[in-house]
């Protein structure tokens, strides 16, 4: 065990205790694993609630705050939270305007949020759901559980949160969230496997000098293994794969939001270097980058690697992207 933890059983609650201590502006329910804005119910806003397994920090709790999520619920490492947590989070942030559930397309998240939506609606809440499914590595979706939800989750949460902050009604917030998901595609690369606290050893075997192309965010292997490539070559493959699918969505010369995301163990020095290559490929292909974000946002524990997410953005999405945000992990404009 080479991890900075007390025990595998307490990693999530220990992290929440630390988060509570570092962020008094957040309402952290350590026992039930729900993190909410203290002022969530005071603004008469639509609630935006997300959640998922732990191990993807700062997603999701790090995005709770002004202009983004109203609340997040946390599951065990890489395991969806349970319906009770989601219902509790929704009730904690509902001010009568309804609640949007942001759900990543993984079987566990989908099933638990589905049950939670039913229960919350039985309690009289209005619930809408948006399913985030942006990962282009899953091509054969007829024979899988469909495209995975990865980096675009950040885009969806930011845009939906900004719209809710402005006072947009539930249907509009949900429609914008669905638009952002439909216009976003991602591709991930792993340079190492990750180590879950429960197992204590890497989740799959990736020898030195090799990399996995087309990974998700749970330490699952990808669609292809190759000898190690340079940042330049990886950017060609990743951006190429994303653009190929984005071309089916809208005008190829429209502006994009770009996220170069680290998987947890890749330093910013490497991520910025990789971003330089991503920006170069996009420029060569005539795709204008309206806004770019580089950093560790949708991670996979201690996995080395990165992902590229692009979102075709219209003027309203750009405006909402620029809108002020103040969360533990993302803040600007205030």
């Amino acid at each position: 065990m080479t991890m900075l933890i007390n025990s595998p059983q307490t990693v999530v609650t220990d992290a929440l205790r630390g988060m509570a201590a570092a962020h008094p502006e957040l309402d952290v329910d350590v026992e039930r694993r729900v993190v909410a804005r203290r002022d969530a119910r005071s603004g008469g806003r639509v609630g935006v609630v997300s959640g998922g397994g732990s191990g993807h920090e700062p997603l999701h709790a790090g995005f709770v705050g002004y202009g983004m999520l109203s609340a997040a619920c946390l599951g065990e490492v890489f395991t969806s939270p349970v319906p009770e947590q989601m219902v509790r989070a929704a009730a904690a942030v509902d001010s009568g305007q309804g609640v949007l559930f942001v759900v990543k397309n993984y079987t566990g998240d989908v099933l638990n949020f589905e049950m939670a939506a039913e229960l919350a609606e039985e309690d009289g809440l209005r619930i809408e759901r948006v399913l985030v499914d942006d990962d282009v590595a899953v091509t054969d979706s007829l024979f899988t559980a469909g495209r995975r939800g990865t980096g675009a989750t950040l885009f969806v949460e930011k845009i939906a949160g900004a719209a809710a902050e402005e006072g947009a009604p539930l249907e509009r917030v949900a429609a914008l969230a669905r638009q952002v998901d439909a216009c976003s595609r991602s591709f991930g690369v792993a340079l190492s496997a990750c180590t879950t606290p429960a197992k204590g050893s890497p989740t799959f075997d990736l020898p030195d000098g090799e990399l996995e192309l087309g990974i998700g965010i749970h330490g699952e292997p990808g669609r292809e293994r190759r000898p190690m490539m340079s940042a330049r070559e990886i950017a060609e493959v990743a951006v190429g794969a994303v653009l190929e699918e984005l071309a089916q969505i809208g005008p190829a010369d429209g502006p994009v939001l770009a996220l170069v995301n680290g998987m947890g163990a890749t330093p910013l020095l490497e991520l910025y270097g990789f971003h330089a290559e991503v920006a170069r490929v996009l420029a060569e292909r005539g795709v204008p980058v309206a806004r770019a974000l580089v950093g560790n946002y949708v991670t996979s524990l201690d996995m080395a690697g990165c992902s590229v997410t692009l979102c075709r953005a219209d003027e309203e999405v750009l405006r909402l992207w620029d809108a002020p945000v103040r969360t533990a992990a993302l803040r600007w404009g205030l």
Partner: protein
Amino acid sequence: MRDAEFFRRWMVAAAAAVEREADRLTELDSPIGDADHGSNLLRGFTAVIAALETEPTAATPGAVLQLSGRTLIGTVGGASGPLYGTLLRRTGKALGESAEVSDAELREALSQGVAAVAQLGGAAPGDKTMLDALVPGVAALGTSYRAAGNASQDGALATVPMRARKGRASYLGERSIGHQDPGATSSALLLGTLADVAEPAGAR
């Protein structure tokens, strides 16, 4: 006829089996999932035992299974929580409020539980999921409990050459071939313990 006590014994035996096999389930989940199936189920069944001890109101077979199912949904998370929870909850619901149920009634109720799992997960036998153990297992209940345990065990083993089409393993495509499905394996444990409780060794 089977009373509430029988179903409590089944849940206790299932919890013991999950505890015994937790490391193996997690190991099976490692190459094609995310290495937590054993620890997640252990957390759930530990909570089931605690709930059954503190809920004396669960006095019928249906109530025992419904409480167990709700507890699994509330504690396991992931896909296993809703799927196992639905299996037990729907089976319990189908058993109704009788104080005792016949083996034929249990067989029919379990079929309904399995059908609910198939519907919730959108899966079918051959997709390399828990259904590959549950469907043949419940079908063999017509013969005997032991036959059901064995058929589900064979069903779990038969997932090895399959290509996963549902759940996280589905993202591996061809590379999911050659690994036994952890969900089918734990499902075989569940039906195996049912056989142990219904037909204790020596009574075969």
